[in-house]
């Protein structure tokens, strides 16, 4: 116990020393001023003391539970190992089981449908963003979570979708509804175009190439003024009209809200169906073991490309919503951090889990939105969250996301439960 406190004190001292120049000192050599901010140091010292203590505690506990797990494995040897659930796991499982209760889903749906009626346009717009990120998270979840291909360039497809609508509208006067499928297909096509050359790449190399792809797409948009309008972007993108009717700003936001709800619901249903289909199982097999996957007679090339295409498709769709919602697109909205944010959702949610993605989006998008003080620290916390997540819970919040097939199907094939 004491040694733990001592270690934490050492950690606090170390981190104070480490952060001292950047946290305490602020120097302007031109104005010849040195700003000393000692209070920051106190904050760091106390903060790291506690973080280090808790960090160490959990590290030790993880170590211990791993050992116990093997001990259990020895003791009962040939019997099946009981799944050792931690309390957090239990809470999360219960929480995610709640989402299976039909009345709850009904209540939730009613709430979602009723929401814009009782809220300001501003609130409505926040929820639109949240739903957009849910769809983006679900789309990337196909690539990263199910197929196990670490894609750091997902934001590029989002950009492609948004620009597709903006340009189709600007140059050819295409409306929202025609642009929607075109943008989706275009993004999917780009998904395949990116997919083909990187087929042989694995893991971290793939991650770097997709990141490079994202930067290339963004930089091309930024520099190609004549066609893509450069850094200044494209303004005046119309919102969808209601059967030819022009709606006011508030009205059209509400209308867009319902469109987004429908798209989100469709995305959830489609992706869930994919998840429990032949191709979904092939994706997961690919993620688990590429060699064994191929040995099972699965064409890994085709499987990878479908994952890239179907993942990118949703980014294209959401891109169109984005363009319509903000009525303006520019490359600055689609930096690497957009990709990082979407990946955070997938990582935090638990790779492969649809419920996890939804839960994670609510935490990562809504929380900072409503806790203003968090906003400034949002990215900082994201970074810390990634590291913490990987160290303590690489499987994400909802990990046991396996579908339970109905073992004795009724003659007519009862609906599957998920």
């Amino acid at each position, binding site marked *: 116990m004491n040694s733990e406190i001592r270690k934490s004190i050492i950690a606090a001292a170390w981190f104070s020393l480490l952060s001292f120049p950047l946290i305490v000192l602020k120097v302007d*050599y*031109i104005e010849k001023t040195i700003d000393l901010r000692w209070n920051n140091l106190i904050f760091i010292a106390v903060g790291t003391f506690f973080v280090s203590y808790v960090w160490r505690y959990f590290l030790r506990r993880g170590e211990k539970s791993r050992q116990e797990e093997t001990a259990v494995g020895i003791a009962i040897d040939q019997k099946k190992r009981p799944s050792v659930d931690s309390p957090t796991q239990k809470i999360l499982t219960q929480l995610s089981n709640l989402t299976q209760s039909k009345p709850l889903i009904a209540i939730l749906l009613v709430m979602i449908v009723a929401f814009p009626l009782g809220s300001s346009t501003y609130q409505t717009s926040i929820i639109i963003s949240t739903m957009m990120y849910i769809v983006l998270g679900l789309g990337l979840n196909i690539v990263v979570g199910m197929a196990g291909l*670490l894609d750091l360039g997902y934001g590029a497809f989002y950009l492609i979708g948004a620009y597709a609508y903006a340009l189709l509208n600007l140059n050819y006067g295409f409306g929202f509804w025609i642009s929607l499928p075109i943008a989706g297909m275009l993004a999917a096509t780009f998904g395949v175009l990116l997919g083909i050359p990187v087929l042989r790449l694995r893991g971290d190399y793939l991650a770097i190439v997709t990141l490079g792809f994202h930067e290339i797409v963004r930089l091309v948009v930024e520099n190609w003024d004549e066609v893509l309008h450069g850094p200044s972007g494209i303004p005046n993108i119309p919102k969808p009209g209601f059967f030819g009717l022009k709606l006011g700003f508030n009205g059209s936001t509400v209308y867009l809200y319902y469109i987004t709800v429908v798209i989100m619901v469709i995305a959830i249903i489609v992706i869930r169906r994919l998840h429990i289909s032949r191709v979904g199982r092939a994706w997961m097999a690919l993620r688990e073991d590429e060699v064994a996957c191929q040995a099972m007679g699965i064409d890994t090339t085709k499987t990878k490309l479908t994952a890239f295409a179907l993942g990118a498709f949703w980014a294209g769709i959401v891109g169109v919503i984005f363009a319509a919602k903000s009525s303006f697109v520019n490359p600055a909205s689609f930096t690497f951090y957009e990709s990082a944010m979407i990946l955070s959702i997938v990582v935090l949610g638990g790779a492969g889990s649809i419920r996890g993605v939804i839960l994670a989006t609510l935490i990562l998008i809504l929380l900072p939105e409503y806790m203003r003080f968090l906003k400034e620290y949002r990215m900082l916390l994201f970074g810390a969250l*990634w*590291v913490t997540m*990987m160290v303590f819970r690489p499987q994400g919040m909802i990990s046991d996301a396996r579908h339970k097939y109905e073992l004795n199907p009724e003659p007519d094939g009862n609906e599957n439960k998920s």
Partner: protein
Amino acid sequence: MTGTYDILSYFLELFSSGLTRGSIYALLALGYTLVYGVIGLINFAHGEVYMVGAFIGLIVAGIMSIMDYNILAILFVTLTFAMIYAAAYGFTIEKVAYKPLRQAPRLAALISAIGMSIFLREYVILAQTPDFVSFPALIPKPAFLLAIKNYLEPTEVLIILSSLTIMVLLLILIKRTKVGKAMRSISQDREMALLLGINVNKTISMTFMLGSVLAAFAAILIAAHIGQINYNIGFIVGIKSFTAAVLGGIGSIRGALLGGLVLGLTESFATGYFSSDYEDVFAFSILILILIFKPSGLIGTVATEKV
């Protein structure tokens, strides 16, 4: 006659700026390659260590220049401080974000590395500034180089020379010293290294510290040369240096040097003779092309998975 002269001097200008970039890339690429060799991880946060090194340097140089120290003294102290601090950061990053993940899948470590990179950028934004800040010009222009200033930029020559010197020192360290041999043996066969009594943890820490020292060295030189820094400088330079490392063949030390110089020169000539708009697009395209067509790089060897 003047025409030829202009063509020549323009060429020389591009050549020296290409070498300057190249040597910076090479210094950073060494960091990527060393870490990759030892633990098989793309240390995504390496570019951020470079950036943090520049900011530490700014603070030290700022204080000293307010106190009116001699410029050479400032340069020396700044370099020393930045390098020590960067080493400490590198050491800590490994302990916090990578060490607990040694047994985990490689992707977990990579995501952790990206998280660390995001964290460090935001940390600098919050602790210092999100804007560009100017960095004092610390690199002297010695008289003997002024003679050639019509052809080559003196500061660039100094940067190239000092980078080469430190690289040679590093090569000697890796080739001759015990710790260098330990590093290379771990990258060839970690289990065998363990069986020979090599302390793997210690060696991995050393590798991170060594890479970070090089990054800080590069950061101070380039910051003092260009004259301004911000929180974002590590990202782009990091990616490009990683490209250089892959170009040469990741894991190979000579490859990192070669890759850095090749990338710096091609980039310089491409932007000089074609267009500077697509400078970064160019670098990223090279990265993708190499990874696709020659993932083992110029001097690398292919690792095949055992079935």
